[in-house]
């Protein structure tokens, strides 16, 4: 099967900065693909390479089998939802949504009808006459989405689309985007630095760091079986355990990762890892504990309301051996 988007050994260098460094990537048609990474990790540059705003320094990009190098953005069948939405302030909402059809020469009645339908799709029917400046952030986001979808792109690119929304709205939009993608069957490529967003929405996640892809896999893969220390730490703030520590408890001299929710706290005279409780952090549904185990800083998450030792007290940590995940990376 042809990939929706295929990167072969793609690099994009800005002077001496390797924003994207020899990336191989295959996005399956119809999937919800997330590019996750800290800022400056190259994920947005990858998105801009697909959109055509950047050209690769080396390597080749194909979109549904067609070579994309040298093809300008306006000749690619992909559309972007920009981080700042980039709505046209001088046009009303309907003309914003109909813009793509207008420049393609679609007649006025026809494109307005299509724009109305797209607005209904993002649940903003009847907002056509308003100006972008009169809309809330969440509504602008929906207009940007409608403006992209009205062109029936083969791939929809979303650049941190939920970054500017408040928490409640973000959660709603996550669900809505997901069901919209399921209903339309369009390939979505989604850039985010929020690991929770990537895990909850995507079919597959690529974790970026320093212009390279650290790991590609399903959210379960990424979360349960991180390949490198970076992935373990970045996705879900896992406890990264050095080889010496892992050797003592698992018998192998390898880096390990242990999820904060896998650690249990016990009384000071039991079997397990001797530690000291440094601080507790109340998070609502859970409480996050910072622990000091022989100089190693660990974090544990326990359900709120559990009986806790006092800060500074000695405790013993236990965990299931199978929760301790050993990583490929050596040393």
């Amino acid at each position, binding site marked *: 099967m042809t990939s929706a988007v295929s990167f072969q050994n793609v690099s994009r260098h800005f002077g001496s900065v390797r924003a994207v460094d020899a990336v191989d990537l295959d996005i399956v048609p119809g999937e919800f693909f997330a590019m996750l990474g800290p800022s400056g990790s190259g994920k947005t540059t990858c998105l801009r390479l697909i959109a055509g705003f950047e050209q690769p320094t080396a390597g080749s990009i194909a979109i549904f089998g067609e070579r994309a190098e040298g093809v300008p953005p*306006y000749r690619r069948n992909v559309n972007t939802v920009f981080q700042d939405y*980039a709505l*046209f302030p001088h046009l009303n909402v309907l003309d914003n949504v109909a813009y793509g059809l207008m420049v393609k020469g679609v007649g006025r009645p026809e494109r307005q009808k299509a724009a109305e339908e797209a607005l209904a799709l993002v649940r903003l029917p009847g907002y056509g006459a308003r100006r972008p400046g009169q809309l809330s952030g969440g509504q602008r986001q929906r207009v940007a989405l409608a403006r992209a979808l009205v062109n029936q792109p083969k791939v929809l690119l979303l650049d941190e689309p939920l970054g500017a929304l408040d928490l409640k709205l973000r959660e709603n939009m996550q669900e809505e985007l997901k069901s919209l993608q399921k209903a339309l069957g369009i390939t979505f490529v989604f850039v985010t630095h929020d690991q929770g967003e990537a895990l909850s929405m995507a079919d597959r996640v690529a974790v970026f760091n320093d212009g390279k892809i650290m790991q590609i896999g399903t959210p379960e893969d990424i979360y349960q079986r991180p390949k490198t220390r970076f992935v373990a730490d970045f996705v879900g703030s896992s406890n990264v355990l050095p080889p010496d520590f892992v050797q003592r408890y698992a018998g192998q001299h390898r880096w390990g990762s242990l999820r904060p929710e896998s650690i249990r706290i016990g009384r000071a005279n039991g079997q397990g890892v001797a530690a000291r409780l440094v601080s507790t952090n109340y998070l609502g549904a859970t409480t996050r504990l910072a622990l000091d185990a022989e100089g190693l800083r660990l974090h544990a998450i326990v359900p709120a309301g559990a009986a806790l030792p006092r800060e500074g007290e000695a405790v013993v940590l236990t965990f299931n051996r199978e929760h301790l995940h050993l990583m490929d990376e050596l040393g």
Partner: protein
Amino acid sequence: MRSDRGPSAPIGLKLAATGGLLFLHLPILLIFVYAFTTEEKSFVWPPPGLTTQWFAVTWNRPDVWQALSLSVRVAAISTAIALILGTLCAAAVSRTKFFGRETISLLVILPIALPGIITGIALRSAFALAEIPFSFWTIVLGHATFCVVVVYNNAVARFRRTSGSMIEASMDLGADGFQTFRHVVLPNIATALLAGGMLAFALSFDEVIVTTFTAGQQQTVPIWMLEELIRPRQRPVTNVVAMVVVLVTLLPILAAYYLTRDGDQIAGSGK
């Protein structure tokens, strides 16, 4: 009604402010009054009598029409040149990063900071070196140097306020470079260009110093007025023309002010 009205200013401050405003604008009013005086050789106060005959006299003076027509043509063409060059330059400086960008920005603005006499002398010696005879076009070139600045400043301010991703969004939605300029860039900078253009027109229309150095035998309106003041005959004609000049330059500046008052400053209006 404003509900946030502060406490009233002390009477002394009010008087000082009124005095300042009168000092600024009374002389201009005087010029208007002298346009109606019956005394034609010298300006005496109070005017011995009032008449509107000077309007008819002015209307029938071919030299006035020549000067006026030259000024309008020079201002129109300088403004047109400035609009094109200023917009292009502003787009380059605000849209891209390149070596020497700040220097270019400074060099473009420099003509408005330099005394006109420097620009004038520089241009005159440059024209002489290149053996370009003084003509209509040498005046236009001289005026374009400072008209570009006004357009540039207004356009740069507007470009900075418009989101860069808007142009990318337009391309992303299938518009090529020309369509993007026509449907997105131009509508967003139109009022800034209009404001800059009108200011440029006004600046060119009343420019004296640079014109003195770049004009040959031709007279623009301000040069004509300077010459007229030396002649002790039909003096009020100068005042009539002055009234026209005030209106021609003031109206565009007012219009520019209202067009861009939502945030944009009229850069360079102080020249």
